[in-house]
């Protein structure tokens, strides 16, 4: 490949540009009105203005993206995460135009994007799934009947949902009845699909995912796990690898299950199999993300691999560079997602970054979408940067992270950096003793203001 169009923005566009540069590949990026001053626009070989700031007029504008790809005669499109990355129709369209998609086939994207279909596929393949519905649910009465069989609390989810949107926990029949209509409406608005399903709500639970990779010759391996249990509003805040919870045996079992899941759909390129793990060490398939994950750097730091390079090589038809037995998990890595938001209320805080200083230090990697003087707009997700801290062991990571946040400085908008400082001081977190309920169960971590 000689030229790649990156259909994304911010930190992930910058991340992909970096590997393109290292591989001698030209990178073409697109940007909206709001993003014209962001670093990735300058870093790419060439940048095209794509439209107004709202996503439907910019990063979701398939026609415009295809037009630029054709004009530039690119070999491939890298979708990053979010936006068009899991849009099967888009993947199909560009493949038919002879442009490679850096990701799996459109059939796999479509099959795994439909969460009910994905559950069914995994059940058939012998991968344990969260107890719940096999068929999509269309009305509230049906939902209630099924929830009675499963037992409360349950999670009501949109089949086309993801990223924490279109899902709600229901403790009883009354809540389920009330939530069904509004969640279904929201699913239709966000995803254009109102199919719903119900899963048993597992608690306490850990959210642990396995990175997998497949080449076009049918070889599939895993690159170990990431523990993503520290979340707010079902969205990840901190991720680490290895998971402080998993035993060697469970780690191996989950790796094997993830590979089996990927094999059942003849998976190619990078993907992630998400599992929920209960307090007894039982793990269940949650969903499969058919793209590069936000938190892929912790896998890179502990395996020494460049996943974007692997993605490009796989899309070129090259075989995987390593066998399963050759992949080593070494040291420890933790990622902190720096969000433009109030650390207490988790409410968005868009605005201008007047000053920004990331302290240097050994084992510190910064994947940033913004720099001093940029404005974080309200149009996209609130992530400013990912701070990835690595060391030979977990306690070393925690020390480095504490030092980092002690001298981290950002002025102009609110961020969740103060929350990270408190989490790092928490003894349960220090011991690796946490579940997805961590932030809601520890109100003392949330700053009390007013």
């Amino acid at each position, binding site marked *: 490949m000689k030229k790649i169009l990156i259909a994304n923005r911010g930190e992930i566009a910058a991340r992909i540009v970096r590997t393109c540069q290292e591989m001698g590949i030209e990178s073409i990026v697109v940007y909206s009105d709001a993003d014209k001053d962001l670093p990735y626009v300058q870093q790419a070989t060439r940048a095209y203005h794509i439209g107004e700031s709202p996503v439907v007029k910019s990063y979701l504008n398939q026609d415009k993206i295809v037009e630029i790809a054709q004009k530039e005669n690119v070999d491939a499109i890298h979708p990053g995460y979010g936006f068009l990355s899991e849009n099967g129709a888009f993947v199909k369209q560009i493949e038919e135009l002879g442009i490679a998609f850096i990701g799996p086939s459109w059939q796999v994207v479509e099959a795994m994007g439909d969460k009910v279909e994905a559950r069914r596929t995994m059940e058939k393949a012998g991968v344990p799934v969260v107890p719940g519905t096999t068929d999509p649910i269309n009305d509230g009465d049906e939902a209630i009947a099924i929830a009675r069989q499963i037992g409360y609390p349950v999670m009501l989810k949109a089949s086309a949902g993801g*990223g924490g949107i279109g899902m709600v926990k229901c403790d009883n029949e009354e809540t389920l009845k009330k939530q069904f209509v509004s969640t279904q409406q929201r699913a239709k608005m966000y995803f254009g699909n109102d199919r719903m399903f119900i899963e048993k709500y597992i608690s306490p639970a850990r959210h642990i995912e396995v990175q997998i990779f497949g080449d076009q010759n049918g070889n599939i391996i895993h690159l170990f796990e990431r523990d993503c249990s520290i979340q707010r509003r079902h969205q990840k805040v901190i991720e680490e690898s290895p998971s402080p919870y998993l035993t060697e045996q469970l780690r191996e079992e989950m790796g094997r299950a993830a590979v089996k899941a990927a094999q059942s759909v003849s998976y190619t390129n990078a993907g992630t199999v998400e599992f929920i793990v209960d307090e007894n060490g039982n793990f269940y398939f949650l969903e499969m993300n058919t793209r590069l994950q936000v938190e892929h750097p912790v896998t890179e730091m502990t395996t020494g691999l460049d996943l974007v390079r692997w993605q490009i090589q796989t899309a070129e038809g090259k075989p995987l560079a390593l066998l399963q037995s050759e992949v080593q998990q070494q040291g420890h890595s933790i990622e902190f997602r720096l969000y*433009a938001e109030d650390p207490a209320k988790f409410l968005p805080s*868009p605005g201008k970054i007047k000053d920004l200083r990331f302290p240097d230090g050994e084992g510190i990697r910064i994947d940033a979408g913004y720099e001093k003087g940029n404005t974080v707009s309200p149009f996209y997700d609130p992530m400013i940067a990912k701070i990835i801290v690595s060391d030979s062991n977990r306690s070393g990571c925690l020390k480095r992270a504490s030092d980092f946040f002690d001298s981290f400085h950002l002025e102009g908008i609110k961020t969740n950096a103060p929350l990270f400082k408190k989490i790092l001081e928490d003894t349960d977190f220090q011991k690796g003793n946490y579940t997805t309920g961590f932030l809601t169960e520890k109100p003392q971590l949330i700053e009390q203001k007013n």
Partner: protein
Amino acid sequence: MKQVTASMAGTVWNIAVSQGDEVAAGQSVVVLESMKMEIPIEAETAGTVEEIKVAVGDFVNEGDVLVVLA
């Protein structure tokens, strides 16, 4: 006359009231979407909706007037 203003920049996602409606203090009148989150904007005081200044899909800045109460 009392005004309900946007607490942050965002896009108008939903308008929960109509002209002439009685609203109570603390009632959500408009939902904004900012950074992929839905932010309910509440009336600080009770009143009758006199005018709705925005439409669904409009972009508003922090401090912009959304609804005027009488």
